[in-house]
């Protein structure tokens, strides 16, 4: 699989799942700061990147396994203290990869979040983002439309993307995560 396809694979399978993976982390790991979670998530992206995605039948489960291993590694270095013992973490069942109803709920929640982020942006950054990502114009076309340089457009787009990345890091339980956590807690107790 070439790298463009791999990036698309990440975009399709992992990015939509990131918030739930993060929620899982915050539920299971005591004293986890947002920065710790960012570290772990970023490293998890880096690790899954080097794998052949075609070989991964259950991307979400796999991503979560990587995250659990990272938690175990960090716990060994005493950076963070997991709430459950490692053996228990190892034996936990993980979220299904079946695209069930919660995936649509999750997509809806993601859209809503994205909308809120965009609303919080300065008008020009929001416009640039919409032209580039919603209308599908190129950077140069956006620059022509807005009457600014291409590098100025890149700055606007970067600002929009940075706020999206920040928003994804926020700890804020949403309904579908609450649903997921009930399921996982039930599994924890087995």
């Amino acid at each position, binding site marked *: 699989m*070439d*790298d*463009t396809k*791999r*990036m*698309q694979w*990440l*975009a*399709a399978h*992992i*990015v*939509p799942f*990131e918030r739930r993976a993060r929620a899982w982390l915050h539920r299971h790991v005591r004293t986890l700061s*947002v*920065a710790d979670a*960012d*570290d772990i*998530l*970023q*490293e*998890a*992206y*880096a690790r899954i*990147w*080097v794998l052949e995605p075609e070989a991964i039948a259950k991307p979400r489960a796999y991503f979560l396994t990587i995250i659990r291993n990272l938690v175990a590694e960090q716990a060994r270095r005493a950076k963070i203290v997991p709430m459950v013992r490692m053996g228990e973490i190892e034996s936990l069942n993980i979220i299904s990869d079946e695209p069930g109803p919660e*995936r*649509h709920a*999750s*997509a809806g929640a*993601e*859209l809503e979040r*994205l909308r809120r982020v965009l609303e919080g942006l300065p008008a020009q950054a929001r416009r640039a983002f919409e032209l*580039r*990502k*919603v*209308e*599908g114009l*190129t*950077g*140069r*076309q956006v620059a022509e439309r807005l009457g600014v340089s*291409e590098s100025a457009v*890149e*700055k606007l*787009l*970067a*600002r929009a*993307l*940075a706020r*999206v*990345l*920040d928003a*994804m*890091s926020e700890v804020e339980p949403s309904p579908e995560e609450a649903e997921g956590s009930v399921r996982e807690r039930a599994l924890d107790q087995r």
Partner: protein
Amino acid sequence: MNARSTNDEAAAWAVRLDGAQLSAQEQQQLDAWLALSPRHPGALLRARAVWSSLGAADEEGAAEAPRSLTRQAPERPPGRRGGLIGNWRAAAALVAAVAAVLLGYRLLGLRGEGYETRVGEVQRIALEDGSAITLNSDSAARVRFGAHQRAVVLTRGEGLFEVAKDKTRPFVVSTGGVSVRAVGTAFAVRALPDAVTVTVTEGVVEVSGAEVPAQRVAINQRAEIRPRHPVIVRSQDPGEAGRQLSWRDGILSFSGESLAEAVREVNRYSHRQVEVADPALARRPVIGIFRAGDIDAFAQSTAVALGAKAEADGAVIRLVPASP
């Protein structure tokens, strides 16, 4: 560096990589930024993946990320916005694809892969460029392949490096303040507490360091490098180098080394250790071929050969002169 500014920087690079091709200067800046923190490669990857996932129009449904991505895919029919622009878009997509390949390469390289062997273990590691590392017992190495250099840090022990030819990216092994530079060759590097040895079995390497003047070491030569000392280069016959590297086949071979040296070697492969206290015995020459890790066999046969006694004492086997 806090997460927020990492996100800002990662976002700037992700957007930049989605646009026109990087200039040489930008490429250098990106390389430098990626190398600045072990978090940066992952942060950029995440930013690029999120950037890719964005872009579904609301009515299309954001869950359909793959569909939205076809917007930027090269197979998109060109010309919808006019031939020139269509071609430009195809070119831009190609550039983006090339940038992604370069980036992936870089991400793989800068993260660095760590390898480690336990006592008694010998491991051969195939690298992405066709080179291979064989790590000897109780050794560790870190591999970082970049655009301009294939870098390996031998953090402990000994490694045999079989280097695939690539003139544009020298293969550099560093350990203990010494760098061994090769283009395509085979050599072994061993980190000792007070020195580094380099044995070349194919081609030529260049040895250098902060306190070591640059020195070429060629096939069938062995260099011993100590800080603030001139590099000692000795020639040896081809069989000799092969014998010194027989450990990669799990075999230790001695042809007249002192017992002290032979014991130091066999002890590398075993938790149980041989000790020789008697200086005269320690100087006696050892000849023979032994299986690495089979320390009892070594102790018993050298004891017989040298007229000594092997006394087992827990984790230690003492070789002592037989009483007259």
